[in-house]
Structure formats: structure tokens, C-alpha cells
């Protein structure tokens, strides 16, 4: 009987503790995703994007504004390589309704990866195109942002991949690749909004 009473007591006392723990966890998650008001403007934004048909190949020109959060900047400055993903989708419009992704057919999906590294010896920044292996050196981070945001003549797809008829449109977005961060950083990067840097989808029709 004594034992039973003890268990009852424990059960009764345990509930507030459990609730407290759950509430604290929720608070921590909410806090981490909404804190740092000074970094509220951090994020990527696609200002402009268009395609040109040159010699049977569609080339992409885009202007993207990259504003890194304090955490991301700190990581880059401390030699942590950060990868930016340019995600592109070519879709064929099937219905009359615009932007109906469930219905529209995906023709092609491309992913461009750009890795930002620091060169401590020369105090420069290196942007490495992981798809082509091409490298660009920037003397300062502001120059890097300008250079990174100006995408010109990015070969997208061959003309023949698109059919003779139909409406095609393109979607583009830029995001920070959390999976390419060093593993110790990843859990916090997933939990923190400061690391979740990504633009909205920018969408436009492919002119033919």
C-alpha cells in the first residue's frame, strides 16, 4: 500500500515537470527561430532573371541579392566553407491555371552549387563553381556579394528539350545548403532561422 501511494505521488508530481519541460523546449525552438532582430533582413532575394536563346541553348541571366546573417558571415570569416545552391526548374504549363505545380509537368531540374571559401594568405575570397570547377577570386566580401549576385550566361538547357508547342516557364531560387556545412553545425543550422537562408521562387515564362 505504501508502495502504491508512493507511485501515485510520483505520478501526480511528475506531470507538472513534464509540462514544464515540453513548454521550455517549445520556447527554446520558438526563440531560436525568431530571435536576433538585427539579422531580420538576412536572406536571399532574386531581383531579376531572364533567359536568352543563343545558338540553340537557353542561357540564364539573373541578379540575386545575397544578404548573409551574422552567424553565416561569422562562419565564412572563420574559414567554414559555405555552399549556395541555385535551384532551377523548367516546367510545362498543362492547365489554364497558372502556377499549378501539382498539375504542370516538370521538364528539367538543375542545381548549381557555388562554394564560398576564404584564402587567408592572400586575404581574398574564392567562389568555386562545383559544377564546372571554375573559380573566381574576390578581394573583399562586398565584391564577392556583387560577383555572386550577377549570374550571366549560365547555360540552362538545349532548345530541343522543349517541345514545339506549349507554354514553358522557369522557376529559380537560391538557398544556403545546410547539408554541406560541417556536421557539428548542422543540427543548429536546421533549428535556427538564421541559417535558413533562401529566396522565394522566382518564376517567369520562357520566351520563344
Amino acid at each position, binding site marked *: 500500500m505504501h*508502495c502504491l501511494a508512493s507511485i501515485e505521488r510520483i505520478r501526480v508530481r511528475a506531470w507538472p515537470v513534464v509540462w514544464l519541460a515540453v513548454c521550455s523546449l517549445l520556447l527554446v525552438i520558438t526563440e531560436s527561430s525568431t530571435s536576433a532582430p538585427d539579422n531580420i533582413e538576412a536572406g536571399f532575394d532574386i531581383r531579376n532573371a531572364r533567359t536568352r536563346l543563343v545558338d540553340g541553348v537557353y542561357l540564364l541571366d539573373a541578379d540575386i541579392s545575397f544578404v548573409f546573417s551574422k552567424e553565416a558571415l561569422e562562419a565564412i570569416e572563420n*574559414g567554414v566553407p559555405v555552399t549556395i545552391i541555385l535551384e532551377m526548374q523548367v516546367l510545362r504549363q498543362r492547365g489554364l491555371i497558372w502556377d499549378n505545380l501539382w498539375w504542370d509537368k516538370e521538364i528539367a531540374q538543375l542545381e548549381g552549387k557555388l562554394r564560398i571559401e576564404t584564402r*587567408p594568405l592572400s586575404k581574398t575570397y574564392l567562389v568555386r563553381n562545383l559544377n564546372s570547377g571554375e573559380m573566381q577570386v574576390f578581394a573583399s566580401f562586398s*565584391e564577392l556579394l556583387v*560577383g555572386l549576385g550577377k549570374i550571366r550566361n549560365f547555360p540552362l538547357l538545349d532548345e530541343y528539350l522543349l517541345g514545339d508547342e506549349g507554354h514553358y516557364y522557369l522557376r529559380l531560387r537560391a538557398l544556403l545548403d545546410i547539408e554541406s556545412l560541417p*556536421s557539428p553545425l548542422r543540427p543548429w543550422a536546421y533549428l535556427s532561422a538564421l541559417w535558413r537562408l533562401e529566396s522565394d521562387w522566382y518564376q517567369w515564362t520562357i520566351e520563344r
Partner: protein
Amino acid sequence: MDNRALKRFSTGLGPILAFVLLLLVSLVLMSNATQGSARFGQLYSVLLVINALGLIALGGLIVSNLFTLLRQVRRGQPGARLTVRMVAVFVILSVTPVLVVYYFSLQFLHRGIDSWFDVRIERALDDALELSRSALGVRMRELLSHTEVVADDLVDIPDDQIAIGLDDNRRLSGASEFTLIGANGHIIASSSRDPTTIVPHRPSDAILVQLRQSGSYIGLDSVGDAGLNVRVVVRLPASLSTTEPRILQALYPVAERTSALAETVQSTYAKYRELAYLRKPLKTSFTLTLSLVLLLSLFAAVWAAFYSARRMVAPLQDLAQGTRAVADGDYETQLPESGEDEVGFLVESFNDMTRRLARARDETRRSQQQVEDQRRYLETVLSQLSTGVLTLDENGRLFTSNKAAGQILRVELNDESGKTLEEISHQYPHLHPLEHALQAHVVKTSPTSTPGDDWREEIILLGPSGRQILTCSSTPLSASGGFFAGRVIVFDDVTDLIQAQRNAAWSEVARRLAHEIKNPLTPIQLSAERLRHKYLGKMKAEDSDALDRLTRTIVQQVEAMKAMVNAFSEYARAPRMRLLNVDVNELVTDVVELYRAGNSEIDIETTLADDLPPLEADTDRLRQILHNLIKNALEASPSDGAARVRIETLFVKGPSRDLIEIRTRDFGRGLPEDMTEDIFDPHVTTKTKGGGLGLAIVKKIVEEHGGVVWAEYKTQGASVIMQFPVVSGDSLSAPATRKQAI
């Protein structure tokens, strides 16, 4: 998969061990990923999620176990409290060392990571980088000066010869590539050490911006596959030959050794900076991994505690349930075997015990069955006996009785079970003589002495159907050990036997009387008549009167004696009966009418049953019975006023056979109670006249018809009741058989 199989799967040792092992492997992989292993680095997030989910599942399993256990405790299920105690002990024993190890591991981990970082190493790396920069800086400044000199030289060279000039200067300076670029970015001329280079390396926009700002650019760049190069970009001074601003880019290869060293210093520095930056997340990651391992260990230990406690308590629970089942009378309970240990021995002993109990119970049942069979057999035998048997327990209370006992005593003895004979005789006063006889013997053999020997006695009861003579005997019953356990009383109703004996004796008397007395009567009568005839005329007048009177008396008395002897002869005679189907009502009406017609002062009431079946009887003899009874009744009636007789016929449905009852009742003085049986004997009469054979003949005829007759005393008058059995139509055709049956 049904619920039980699912439960067995989810709580079985194998699946859970496999699950824990998988989680452990997953944690090892995660630990590798934390330490920077490229192979598992990609899977880190997935592994983290898998481990977290696995631990949540394991935690859920434990919580479910805990709730089940608490429910069992609340229900008071056997073994639940023991399980709680064992789980608590196991958990404390396993969790405490794990927590201690966790604490110290965490300490060591944090210190270990901190020990990677040292201010001196950091300083040394900074210095190494600075030294590299300085070493390369001197060389870079020289190369800038040299390039500026080359640029000055190129100013005066015409455009058609500039390629040669450029090539000469490149060779002289030891550069790998010289490129002259125009204002709009077009390449004017280029010279490369590598003859395969078709397109020279262009300066980036950022370099051009810096060139515009500061007039020159110098930097260490990794150019294509050529490794580390010093890139120098300078503006050409203005000249007369051309107005467009031109720039010269020179790429100087860094010595291979220097390049390798610089690259090493740079990469090491960068790696160290990255590591220093990741120090906190790394600690957190390791702590997270360690915590997951701790939680896995804890959960596994707690689950193992539940599992082993359940395993250990299960046989005890089985034992408790088995004991309860045995207590409830289920001796077939067999517990599953549980190993070779002490508990196993206990379980085996329990199973052995239940087997023995079951065997003993079966034997007891068999014995009970045998006793029951024997008892039933005895009961059947006793119930078929015409002898009454009563058994009394040691307190004199009625224990058992057979059917004949109830019939003889005219008492429903089944309702009287458990009562003493005294109590029964209070309710049935005619049993007093039996009770008195028993009391007399019990007193003679008081409880302090031996319970009494056998005794035998003839008892006369005056029951509702008349006097009964019982021969009664009693024997004490002894229980095992020789103790007094009661008494058995056996009795027979010998009334009919004695009566039959008496009747036979009377018949013999009558026959002898008829034979011995009748013969000399005729000679006496004849002699008396002859004496009268011969001497009456010859005597004197006074003598002849005397003779006449005397001889007349002799003749009259002889006539009377003859009549008496004839009556006796009639009683003793057993004439052959002529059986016919007689309507009793009709016969009664005929007889009564004879009396009514003869005398108006006679009042005979008749109440006749409507549904009376025909009676198989000898009409003449039945008529004689009615005559005798009516005559008796009339004679018993008071002399003043009208003689009153009531005759009733009834149909009585008996338990074994149907009966026709004829009752005659007079309204005279009645009968003394002790004469109700004797009145049917010859020469027993309450009347002043008659030979006393009327009722004896009635009885004889009734018995010849298989019936019974008895007299009942009333406050005013007496009744004679006769009952005749009604024979069913089937047996009418076989009178011999019927007679035998009667």
C-alpha cells in the same frame, strides 16, 4: 498478425535487442560523422533523426511498460509489486554507474576538445601565415616593379611588334604569362610559357575594379592548373601612339616548394580557424551524441530491467494464480516449467502437488460414487421392503426412513427428517406407543452406559385406519471407533397376519362346531319329539303339561342351536364366487328400496357418486354385505324414533389403483374406540341380540373381493367403510390373474 503475436514481437527479447543494436550502430555512425568522417558526414542529419526517433520509440515502449505495471499494481495483480521493486532495484543499479560515467565522460570530452586549442599554436599559425605573406610580399613587390618597367617598355612599341616585345619581356622576366588588354576588355597581345594555352587567363571584374581604384593589382591566385601564381595587373602609361587605356597582366609562377609550403600554411591555418570556430558546436555535437548514447543505454537498461523482472516474476505470478486456482478447487492446474533454478524446483513441486491432489480428488470421487451407489442400492432395497425401517442419529433425531415405514405409520416421514420421535409423536399422537417403547429402552440404556442392546417388542398403535400391531426391533449403530452413532428401528405391520390367523382359527372353530354339534342335534330333536309323541297321551294331565313344555323347549333350543350351527357353517364355507360387472349404485338402490318399502319409519339417506365404474363382484354376496350392514345399522339405532342410516358410494383415485368406497353410517351409540378392529371378529358385538357373525361375514366377503373394511368411531354413531379395487377393462378377461394380483 494478431494482437498477441504483435505484443510478443514488440516485447520479445530478440526484436528489442536487434532494435537496440541497430540504434547503437546508428550512434556509432553518427559519432564518426561528428568526427568529420566524409563517408558518414552526408548521413549525419539522417542518422540524428533516426536515432532520435528510435529513442522516442524505445522511450514509448518503456512508458507503456510503466503504465502497464502501474495498472497491474492498482489492480493488485499478483507479482506486480514485486516487479516494481525489482525494476526499481535494477534501474538504480544500472542507471547510477551510467550517469557517473556520463558525467565524467562529458568532463573529459570538453577538456579534450579544449586541449586541442592552444594560444601558442594559434600564435604560431598566425606568425607562419604572416611570415609567408612577408616572404611572398617582398617577391611580389619586386615583381610589381618589374612589371611596371615592362609596361613602360611596351608603351613605345608599335602594335604590330608588341607581341614580340611582350614575348621577349616574358622570357626575360621568367613570367608564365603576359597579356595586354585593351580598354573594352579585348586582348591585344598575349605571351604564354605554355604553348598549349590558347585563351589567356583574364583578370576578373573585381581585379579591374581594384585596378581602377589603386592603379595596380598584385595578388596570389591559384590560376587554373598552374598552381599558385602571383598575379600583377598594371596600367600602361599613356603614349602618343595610342589613346586607349591599356592594362598589362603578368602571371609569375611561385616556386613549387614555396607554393607547396604556402598552400600548407594556408590550409592548416584555415582548418585551425574553422576548428576553433566550431569548438562550441563540436562540443555540443559530442555532448549530443554522448547523451544519445546515454539515453540509449538508460532506456536499454530500463527495458532490460522490465524484461528481466517480468521474466523472474512470471513463474511466481503463475504460482500465485495456480495456488488461487487450487484454492478454488481446480486441481488440473499445471504451470509451465521455468528452468532448473529454485523457482523451477518450486514450480515442479507445485505441479507434482496438483497432480497428487487431482489423483486424491478422483479417488475420493470414486469412493463417494461407490458409497452413493451403495446407498442408492440400499435405498432401493429398503424402499421395496414391506418392512418399515427408520434410522435415528446419536441424538435420537430421525435420519432416514423408507417408504414402507411412512406407509405403516401413516406419516409423511420425509417431512419429519431431523426431528426426534417425541416431536413427531406430538404431531401424530397415534405414534405415542412407539415413542414410549423407544424411550423405555433408551432410559434403560442411558447415554452414560452402552447405547443399548438389540431389543424386540410388539407395539400396538391406534392409527387413523384402526388398530395396528407392529413387531418392532431395534439395533444400535456404531461408527468407526466403536462410538454410538444412532439406532436403526425395523418394524412390520402384522395386523393383517394376526387377523388372518385369527380368522383361520375362527373358521376352524366354526367348521368343527358345525360338524361336531350339528350331528347330535337331529337325534336329540327326534328323540325329544318321539318322547313327546309316545308319552304325552299316556301321562297325567299335570305330567303331560310338563313333558309338553320340556320337549318343546328342547326342540326350540335344538332349532336355535341348528340355526347357530348353520350360521357358523355359512361363515366357514368358502363358496365359489361368480364374478360379474356390478353397478354398485344400482345394487345399493335395490337393497335400500327393499327396506324403504317395508317400513316407513326407516330413513335411509343415499349419496351416490356419478362417475362410479362397474365393480367386478359376486352380486349375491355383495347384496348380503349390504343387508348385513343395513341390518346392523338399524339394530344400532336408538329404539325411540325413526331409524336413520346413511349410505355413500365414492370413487377414490388411489396412488396405485382406483377404488370404489361404500360407507354406511348409523346414528346410534357408536363404538368404543378399542373395538374398531375387534368388531369384525365372530361373536364380538355390542348388541343384545344376534350371533355376532354379521360383521365377520361382511369382512370375509370384502376380503374375498380383495377389498378392505374398517370401522370408524363417530361422536354419534359409527361408520363402516369398505373399499373395493377397480380392475381395469384389460384384465377383466383374465380373472385368475386378477385374483392372484389381489
